[in-house]
């Protein structure tokens, strides 16, 4: 998957699942908690991103993905 598609998936998933969040490139390196994503939202977001990208994200790997940028990096590896 190219980076552009990955960024789109991650941004759309975040906006869909977090009330009032509007994503922008400059927010990609902010922590998910600073973006208003709580521990339950994270589980949903990781699952949605995995399904949309077709990339399996294991439990241990998911724990490390604490910014949108890291999620993008993971699914474009």
């Amino acid at each position, binding site marked *: 998957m190219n980076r552009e598609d990955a960024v789109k998936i991650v941004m759309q998933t975040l906006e869909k699942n977090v009330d009032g969040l509007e994503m922008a490139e400059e927010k990609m390196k902010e922590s998910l908690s600073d973006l208003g994503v709580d521990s*339950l939202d994270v*589980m*949903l977001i990781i699952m949605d991103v995995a399904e949309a990208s077709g990339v399996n994200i294991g439990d241990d790997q998911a724990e490390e993905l604490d910014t949108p940028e890291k999620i993008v990096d993971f699914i474009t590896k």
Partner: protein
Amino acid sequence: MLGIQSIASYLPKDSVDNMHQADRLGADRDFVQHKIGVSTLPRAEEHDSVVSMCVAAFKQLCKKESVDLNEIECVVLCTQNPDGGGLPHNSALIHAELGLSEECACFDIGLGCSGYVYGLSVIQSFMSVNGMKKGLFFTCDPYSKILNHDDKNTCLLFGDAASVTLISDTPCYILEKAQFSTKGSASDALVKNDGILEMNGRAVFNFALQEVPKQITSILNKAELCIEDIDVFLLHQGSRFMLENIIKRTKISEEKTPINLLQTGNTVSSSIPLLLESELSNHSNRILMSGFGVGLSWATAIYRLVK
């Protein structure tokens, strides 16, 4: 034809204020109330036991129905936290407490949150094949006995309760279709280690959101029904957030799918009968129930009103 005639339940009088628990554990109150969806957790008191809570549920049943103890031919209990470690099987102890006839079959079933859907099918099948007409199906799984009270994953979530369902040959709901599934390879997501419950919240969440909508869709297809043919969806009350997202993914109506765990928490195999108890009087034509959890195990059934 056997089916569900009536349901009663029992919630222990003692309870835990989940907001106080949230403060103690450094959890956000708003998160606990609106995302987990639980403000109060009923807790078994010291003198409560699985048997005493089941007997208390039965006493509630007797306030609604005229139950002739001599007619009860079968008692089944679903629990994974029985009194005395399950020896003797607690259904036999309930049998003794209720003073039932010796001509009565009693056995326990060890299942968690899928236990109500499974257990209903088991007791109806057993009674049917053995020509029985009246039976009692109990659920009671006091997780408070196995919680680590410092574990935010679990102690903010689980409440204690008991239920009893009267199965009889004069039912108001009969089974139309049921489907059962197991993913034993993922059973380590919910285990009891050294007597303490451990839950991988992410694994359980992923399992529920991925498998439950698929099973609901599958059973509707097999029954040649569509979502609109179901009047009420009674889903295991795992957590508010989980339920809201299962509803979205299954594309079922929020109005038809009650979320009611604010005052009870997740009561394991008792969560569906607690909902069904208040639903019975509405006389909805078709009710779909879906339970999912420990095992990992999930089961869905469609029940139809007897007119």
